[in-house]
């Protein structure tokens, strides 16, 4: 970690920069008629979304590392040792989780330092961190599947814009209630919206088991699909010639 700051530093600064830009440019958005949370600062409004965005941006790291391992044959080194095949996958998912926790914790701390307010207190913070970390695992697992399939770092990194678009066409930075046309239609169907909305309610209105259950549930479903696909891809790679 300390020997290679370029691997984790961008994942931290990029979302912070975006958050700073949004907070200064769109802060008057809360005064738009029909805004669902009239009495909060825009900073409070974007906090959960920024945390989730930051974690998502970092989620390709784990997959990208795996692709690098395949590219430079470090994977072969692992495969000829007696470690179990599953642990190769598990370690990557665990690293995505830990990375997600760390990133979420740091981002929340910085937001709070700049005056953001989390209504739900400690339990909301823990929930947001947990949901963000599991989201990192979900997206990480799709990235891992891509890494196993292609064995190419470039392909894994090229999925990054997809994540970027997915975040933007969601309720992350603007409430879907105020969106119109096809954009709003997509955003309302975007699973990220379903995760972000309850997470945001927990931050602004206070912790609730229902919101926690909904967002964590959706994240777990996405994670299960991603993990199943990556297990399939790992099997495929083990059988296939390289």
């Amino acid at each position, binding site marked *: 970690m300390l020997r290679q700051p370029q691997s984790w530093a961008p994942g931290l600064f990029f979302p912070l920069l975006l958050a700073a830009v949004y907070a200064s440019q769109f802060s008057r958005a809360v005064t738009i008629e029909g805004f669902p949370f009239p009495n909060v600062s825009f900073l409070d409004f974007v906090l959960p979304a920024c945390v989730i965005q930051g974690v998502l941006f970092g989620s390709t790291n784990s997959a990208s590392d795996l692709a690098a391992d395949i590219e430079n*044959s470090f994977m072969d080194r692992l495969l000829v040792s007696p470690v179990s095949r599953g642990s190769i996958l598990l370690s990557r998912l665990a690293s995505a989780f830990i990375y997600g926790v760390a990133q979420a914790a740091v981002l929340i701390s910085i937001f709070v330092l700049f005056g953001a307010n989390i209504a739900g207190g400690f339990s909301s913070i823990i929930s947001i961190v947990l949901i963000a970390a599991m989201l990192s695992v979900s997206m990480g697992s799709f990235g891992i599947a891509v890494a196993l399939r292609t064995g190419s770092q470039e392909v894994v990194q090229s999925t990054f814009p997809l994540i970027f678009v997915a975040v933007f066409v969601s309720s992350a930075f603007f409430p879907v209630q105020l969106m119109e046309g096809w954009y709003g239609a997509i955003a309302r169907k975007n699973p990220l919206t379903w995760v972000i909305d309850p997470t945001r309610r927990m931050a602004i209105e206070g912790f609730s088991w229902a919101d926690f259950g909904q967002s964590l549930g959706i994240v777990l479903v996405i994670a299960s699909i991603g993990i199943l696909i990556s297990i399939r891809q790992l099997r495929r790679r083990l059988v296939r010639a390289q």
Partner: protein
Amino acid sequence: MSNPIEVTELSRSFGNLRAVDSINLTVTSGEVFGFLGPNGAGKSTAVRMLTTLLKPTSGSARVAGFDVVGDPSAVRKKIGVALQDAAIDPLMTGNELLRLQCVLHGLPKRSSLKRCGDLLERVGLTAAGDRRVGTYSGGMRRRLDLALSLVHEPEVLFLDEPTTGLDPTSRMALWEEVRNLNKDLGTTVFLTTQYLEEADQLAERIAIIDDGKIVREGSPASLKSAVGAPTLRVDVSENDLPLARKAMSHFGEERPARRNRIAIGLVSGTTGITDVLKALDDAGVEIHHVELDEPSLDDVFADATGRRLEGGQV
């Protein structure tokens, strides 16, 4: 005990290409076995199958007594593998990598610390153990790679082109390491190489692979002598030529030679040279110069395939 490597009709196809085509091999315990062939001959594919990284299309292989398909994890516990250009994280130190390797093999922490120290000493990297691998030279990396493959005291060691890309000095240093560990620990070594000299110097027995098939197998010496008798050339003064020719004619067929020189194909092989020299001495011939040219492994390769091994020098 069964042989450490037993290969029966092993094949692997990639699409229409038969990269390895029904090879049969037996490597006995404590042997250094060389797998020689040009690039793309199927050496690495064969090694990948033997080290459980690749499933054979057909045929079977047993390594250290276990089937590579039926019981791959048992095989992995018994083998050490140094793959061709398998990456080492340049940000980690040699010591850290060795510890990691010990963890991968599930060695207890206490004994692995000592083991790592011993291995670094064995490959001459004690002083560089705490330096990042990124600062190592090519030869140092290969030696670290060798140490990494030895942490769990494997019964069979696979070295895939261990010295490709190394300078001659580093190459010879690595050969010395391989010889020593074969001698000290009795480790069976299976090495692939495209260098004739490497196979000649290191391996007690070699198999030559070309186009997925094994075309020759045996000890370097026997393969060479099978190609033909070595050429013995003797320079004598012009007056002695008839005498020398007569004395040498008993030992083999005369071969073309330059002026004042007689060349024969020495039927009895290299060991016959003393008899020839003695006969010449008895005949009262004064010898100015003697040279003996053995067929090289390249000649063996050429004899088997009709081609010269590219880049090979003997």
